[in-house]
């Protein structure tokens, strides 16, 4: 695990970390940077910076639309890595995690990718469609480990005990606990289910658990935080806020307030 992640989770303040997902370079690299700066300034502990692929198989309509916008605009994984570098230059504490699909990494290819993001200042990678059964996952995990970076693994409601044990074993950084079966931004999480799931993971490991999917407002975030997880992940809700206000002149400022409304309840 990167030192930075350790530091973030060792710190008791905020009690529950706010992990927030951004579509890298959305709506443009510059605007994306401005929005992320607001997020950092308003209490986000870990940034998930998504890179885009046309066949993203876990994204709901909101994030898919953002991906399509970025792909249409021609921004690439390289642009997103550059963005990571700018973010790191702006802030040394925030955790940065690159998130996306195996398609782009395979072509990058993987070793070069790990080198480049390490240089850019990222801490971890999450690949949605790379379970540990996939050769490229193994390759990526090895390369990240060799470089002191983390491969963030997902645990889903469908993940059975045996499989959860395997996942916990190979996890580093934190475990991304998926609250609902489904694509991003559609279903809402059930409080009790989340609490039980967090307990199941905590029984197996000390690795921090961040809980995501289906968190639509600060109230949801608060409830999920009560489950005992170490972090709450907000994705589609922020992307949708940006989408809905994309032409508002004060988007950056108002977005900061939006982030704050979440971070506040997690203190």
């Amino acid at each position: 695990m990167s030192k930075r992640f350790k530091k973030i989770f060792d710190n008791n303040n905020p009690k529950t970390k706010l992990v927030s997902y951004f579509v890298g370079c959305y709506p443009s690299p510059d605007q994306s940077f401005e929005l992320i700066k607001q997020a950092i300034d308003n209490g986000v502990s870990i940034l998930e910076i998504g890179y885009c692929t046309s066949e993203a198989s876990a994204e709901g309509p909101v994030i898919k639309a953002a991906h399509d916008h970025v792909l249409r605009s021609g921004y690439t994984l390289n642009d997103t890595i550059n963005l990571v570098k700018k973010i790191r230059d702006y802030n040394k504490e925030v955790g940065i995690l690159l998130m996306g699909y195996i398609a782009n990494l395979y072509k990058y290819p993987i070793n070069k990718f790990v080198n480049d993001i390490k240089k850019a200042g990222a801490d971890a990678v999450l690949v949605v469609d790379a379970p540990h059964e996939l050769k490229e996952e193994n390759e990526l995990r090895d390369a990240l480990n060799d470089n002191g970076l983390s491969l963030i693994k997902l645990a889903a409601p469908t993940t059975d005990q045996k499989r959860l044990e395997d996942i916990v074993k190979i996890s580093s950084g934190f475990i991304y606990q998926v609250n609902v079966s489904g694509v991003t931004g559609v279903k809402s999480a059930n409080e009790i289910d989340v609490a039980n799931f967090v307990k199941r993971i905590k029984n197996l490991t000390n690795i921090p658990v961040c809980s995501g999917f289906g968190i639509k407002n600060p109230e949801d975030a608060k409830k999920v935080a009560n489950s005992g997880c170490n972090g709450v992940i907000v994705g589609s809700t922020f992307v949708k806020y940006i989408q809905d206000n994309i032409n508002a002149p004060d988007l950056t400022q108002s977005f900061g307030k939006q982030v704050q409304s979440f971070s506040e309840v997690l203190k």
Partner: protein
Amino acid sequence: MTKNSLKTGPDELGYYGEGTSAMGGMAVGETLMPALHELNQGFEEAIKDKEFLDEFAYYCKHYIGRPSPLYFAENLTRELGGARILFKQEHLNHTGSHKITNSLFQVLLAKRMGKKSLICESGAGQHYSATAAVAAKFGMPLIGVMGEVDIARVNQNIIKAKHYGAKLKAVPGTLKEAITDAIKTWTTNPEFAYICGSVVSAHPFPKIVAFAQSIIGREIREQSLEQEGKIPDMIVGCVGGGSNFAGAIYDFLDEPNISKIGVEASETAALSNGTPGIMQGMKTYMLQTDDGAKSLGGMSLGAGITYFSVGPLHSYLKDQKAVTYSSATDQEMLEAYKIIARTEGICSALEPMAAAAEVIFRQAKDKPKDYTICLSLCGRGEKDLDTIQEHIGKDFE
């Protein structure tokens, strides 16, 4: 089966071949991984269950109408003046294509595994209407996902599936978008059974679909031996995901003296023009941008073969040089359609006309008269009549 057999199938993680060049695998989100493992286990158990295999054979015969005939295309042979051409008449199956054999197998498997609901994707709508028919037959609700472009061009399949009681989910685009969305729909309902329409997607689907469709090749062998006194010298089939062709050649994979040609649509010829990549659950050849961020590929008139990627088995067979892959243009497909309608009185779907074009324009003519070519005629043309009329209707006046 020896260790070196091309028929050993993928390893337990779904890889065809070894090392970094292995194709296939399981590139899906964690939510679906347990379902895939459960499916693999269910499949492995089922194919050891004689009763289950008998049930599959029973409905193949009575419901689908298998075996589909192996037909000597006398007039086409005479017209081309070269090789002896045989049609494997998969278009005579119930619902009009090879797809139903796979639908039947997977629905029976889902039933055996206690599944209550079904999801499928479709390109030409053949897999959708076939799965809908079987779903009706076994009393299971079905959601089918299709691209809007395809929905418009293969409308009859949509209506039939509706009459069978299936529900349609329309997404912008064609087969590619339908597959991605079907995976999303499955992710949202992982307790459903996903009935995959070709030898594509994550393990174990390529293995399962190839198994179901391999009945085609076994029939070809038996029929050809009986009728022709020998097995064919060449087998040609169209390749979208590649299931009809995989089914036709599977039984012959370890017989290198039998030529095998898979024919893609030239607009989406993943094997001829693509590079390895990982999308839609599998590592395989595909048309994509250099950075792997975007799938590519144009539109073919063959709705069922308008697919930027291809089943990993075919990528493996290409790398092994065990099978040749080529492609055909819309123009060639339409020409082949005309020739086969005129000479043999068969109104074929456009997809197999890619394979027919290869046979007619590039293979048959210069072969000796005792050389036999088996063409997989895997679908009937009703679904394509509007498209055909629009493009070459005037040629028939």
